[in-house]
């Protein structure tokens, strides 16, 4: 550890000066991160060991919040809901984004317009979009209700049903994330050298084979990035739940739409248990960190980096 730091820092005046310049240049960013991220995280950690309702002085309670969390059925339900949502969202988001990216990577009339259209949801306010989607999913008078009416499904209460409510939330999440993933995939597709496709054609590979054996492996670093981002995002799903259930069930009947982030909000802002909410935040952070580390470990098994590109 120390030796590698010294190697990097440099043993000659020239390399040392360069390293100092480097540090000076990243300093503003690091300071900002420390200030606006590091300090709040430390404060959250301290708060998680306290009982605090925001008005009365906090009381130190040790690990009580965490012990309560372990036995709180509402927490496990929120964790389970979050995982269920991620199971629905992640693969759909990635597969659809990849398909759209490959299609829009071809010479196509109106390509720029189509790309923009797919990217629009990303730059649309989630709150505004979720309000409109809540209308769309309203039974009978909503768009979906009207479309499904011929099949006798016009009056289905998508957002009020215990069993169905995660589906519209997942659909909106996919819709919103798709464009961002598409841009990443498009960038990834541009980096694949044409010569490889030409070589594959000469070898007699058909379209599917070229996609399967050239595109997919060479795109795997991008896919990896998209998966990691999608999972992190999945753990943080909040706005969609907050807005789409705001007019009806606020978190789903019996907490059926309550995600970890929404549970955190409820604990802090509705029940004024800020210590407990901080404990949830910390656990959420650890889970996300753990899953991300796991993914980094597993990436060696399936992510292919071109030779010479050391990462």
């Amino acid at each position, binding site marked *: 550890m120390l030796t590698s730091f010294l190697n990097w820092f440099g043993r000659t005046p020239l390399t040392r000066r360069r390293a100092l310049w480097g540090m000076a240049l990243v300093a503003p960013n690091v300071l900002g991160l420390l200030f606006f991220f590091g300090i709040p995280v430390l404060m959250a950690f301290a708060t998680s060991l306290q009982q605090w*309702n925001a008005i009365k002085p906090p009381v130190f309670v040790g690990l009580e919040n965490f012990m309560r969390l372990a036995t709180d059925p509402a927490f496990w339900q929120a964790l389970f809901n979050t995982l269920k949502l991620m199971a629905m969202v992640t693969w759909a988001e990635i597969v659809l984004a990849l398909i759209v990216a490959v299609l829009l990577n071809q010479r196509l009339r109106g390509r720029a317009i189509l790309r923009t259209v797919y990217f629009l949801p990303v730059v649309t306010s989630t709150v505004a979009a979720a309000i409109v989607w809540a209308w769309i999913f309203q039974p009978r008078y909503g768009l979906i209700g009207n479309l499904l009416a011929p099949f006798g499904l016009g009056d289905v209460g998508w957002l*009020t049903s215990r069993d169905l409510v995660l589906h519209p939330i997942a659909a909106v999440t996919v819709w919103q994330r798709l464009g961002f993933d598409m841009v990443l995939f498009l960038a990834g597709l541009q980096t694949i050298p044409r010569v490889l496709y030409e070589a594959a054609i000469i070898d007699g590979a058909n379209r599917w084979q070229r996609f399967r054996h050239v595109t997919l492996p060479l795109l795997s670093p991008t896919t990896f990035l998209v998966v990691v981002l999608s999972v992190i995002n999945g753990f943080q799903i909040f706005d969609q739940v907050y807005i789409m259930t705001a*007019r009806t*069930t606020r978190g789903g*009947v*019996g907490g059926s739409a309550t995600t970890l982030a929404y549970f955190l909000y409820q604990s802090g802002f509705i029940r004024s248990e800020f210590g407990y909410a901080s404990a949830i935040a910390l656990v959420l952070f650890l889970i996300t960190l753990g899953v991300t580390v796991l993914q980094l470990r597993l990436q060696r098994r399936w992510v292919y980096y071109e030779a010479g590109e050391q990462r």
Partner: protein
Amino acid sequence: MLRRVTLLILVMLLLALPALAQEATPEAAGTPAIAPQACEQPGSLTMWVWDENWAEVIGQAIEAWQADYCPGAEVDLQVQPWGQYWDLLKTNVAGGDMPDVFNMSQDRFYFYASNDALLDLQPYFDEAGVDTSLWGSGMIDPYRWGDNQDLYAGPVNWDTIAIFYNKDLFDAAGVEYPTAEWTWDDFAEAAAALTDPENDVYGAAVYAEYQSGYPNWIAATGTTPIVEAGRTRCTLTDEGSLEALNFLKGLYDEGYMPSVSVVGGTSPDDAFNFWLAGKVAMVAGGSWKLPEAIEKATFDWDVVQLPRNPETGRSRSIVHSVGYVASANTENPDLAANLILYLVSDEGQKFFADAGGVAPANPALQQQWIDSFGDAGVNIQTFVDALQDSQGVTVFDEIWDKINTELVVNIFDQGMSVEDAANDACEFINTQLPEQAQ
């Protein structure tokens, strides 16, 4: 809307007690019920309200206060929209940066009072010679706190609930207009006759949310809705509660009332918009809805008292009063109390009475409020009458979502039985009651 609006309770009591009523009448004519006082020392205050319309009215009142009673005082009046008001307030409390004066609702009062965050206004009312009983107990009792039951809020306004009905739909169905004496049976009959599935018209929508919805019907049976006063017990599984909920569910099961999903939400605004769109003939609405109905309804309509329970013969309305409170940590407590005194005085409340929106809490100004609607052809007196047998707010923030959204969705959307839904709600409510009550 309890929240947005508010409530009122008390005035009723005033009107109900002949002695008080007699006292109030001469006051209205001569000396003011509550007179403002000059401030001792001007300073600066921040004030939060959640309604833009109110901010305008309150802003005018503050200007008058600055001109007549406290030259040199500065008030930074801020609107924090309802959707984020309480979250922001909590955040600011946590950051030690509460507004000096702000609006409070009765269901949220407990949290702030029990944490010593509010200024005791009783000494100021006493010093100014205000007899707080002039508001009547329903409007202010939920704002009392401590061993001496001191008053911590100055009531801004009141509101009660009545049935808004579409006369055109009544005429089309050949149903007679209701009177204040009508019963639940009459109501059910009318709902059945008014329902017209072919034209997508429902008879009634009256179950949604605490203040406008099913709790009024529970109150009519003589049972305190949802939680006994003082947070001692969940009452949803009591006989009266089950009777009221089963009555409403019967109407829903028959198809006379739309589901939550069809209406689009559990807020009474959703049901009211449905009524404005001509899709339901009768809706339960608060007095705060009058301006909107007058402005937007494209059909003939009127209001009538909630129907009477056949056994008790009572028609009861939930009443709520929004309050002005001051922070316990304000740097200018005397000034904050002086401003609140002005805002609840006859002079300060006049601005609300004239604005023709919510009804002012000050009992001296009721007729002025009714008159402010001009010749609307609507029986606005109904809302004042509803004060006579009204029910004060006993619920609180922590159980709000459970009783306003979950219980309602379970029964009026998911088809759960009333008994199961009530048991489910009580199980949760019990976890939120003070320890000794469990």
